[in-house]
């Protein structure tokens, strides 16, 4: 099953990259936006049939290595049938 994991910085964690991009957007004339945050996406196939097993495996991966839970949140999306 295809799994998409989105990892983002927690609220309150300094995001200088996001701030730099915000400044560039403002310089380019984009004004109608707020709350810019940088994150990363990890896409993988997990070789299990059962959705709950896939979720459990992905969760385990995030807790063990993929996310640093001190500063990051993660969200797991499973694309069924792919």
């Amino acid at each position, binding site marked *: 099953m295809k799994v998409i994991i989105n990892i983002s910085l927690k609220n309150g*964690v*300094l995001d*200088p*990259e996001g701030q*730099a991009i915000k400044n560039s957007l403002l310089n380019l004339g984009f004004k109608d936006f707020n709350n810019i945050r940088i994150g990363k996406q990890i896409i993988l196939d997990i070789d299990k049939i059962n959705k709950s097993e896939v979720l459990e495996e992905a969760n385990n991966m995030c807790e*063990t*290595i*993929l996310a*640093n839970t*001190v*500063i990051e949140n993660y969200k797991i999306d499973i694309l069924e049938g792919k």
Partner: protein
Amino acid sequence: MRTAVTIFPGSNCDRDMIIALKKITGKTPIKLWHKETEVPNLDLIVIPGGFSFGDYLRCGALAARSPIIKSIKNHISRGGAVLGVCNGFQILIEAKLLPGSLIKNKKLLFTCKKTLLEIQNTLPSPFCSGFKVGTTLEIPVAHNEGNFFASKEMVEKLEGEGRIAFKYKQIKNNKNSFNPNGSLNDIAGILSKNGRVLGMMPHPERVINKFQGGIDGLKFLSTSIEHLVG
């Protein structure tokens, strides 16, 4: 005094650290490749700086899941001492051997410059107990992710338990920002609960000869080693 230096793909301060340790102990440290699972009895393991695994995923994240880390954990549980410098500090945090996190420098710049460190009032530790509280050492930093971050409660806890080894201090008359990365409470290095694991962003191995612009790194390392032996 038996010392070792770990080496990961992308470590680049290992040789400087080996030279520094040899200069102090008179013996060449053992090199520990990241795939090794068994290490001999050692007094001190140093995790040097660099860009282990290309800083992929997060700095130190992949190195912290290498086979050698298990041996380092065993070494620590036997009361062994560990020093992590720069990327080594990032690895210790990723391996959850030290708390908090090291995030991108506040100004988004790779910072390479001299910093002044002030020794804090710590719990008994071979790395700090040889210095009077308030002693300053001039040791350079060189990093992109050295901004120490943790929850307010954790920082308070570290302060309360005497686990902050040193903080950045203003260099005389220099009005530039003295904290090179924006770390909370100007933290430059922290200790484990038993005081025998130290993670620090500055590079002591880079100031061990006068021609390098200073010898405070040598002073720091040799005092630490004296206290490990003593």
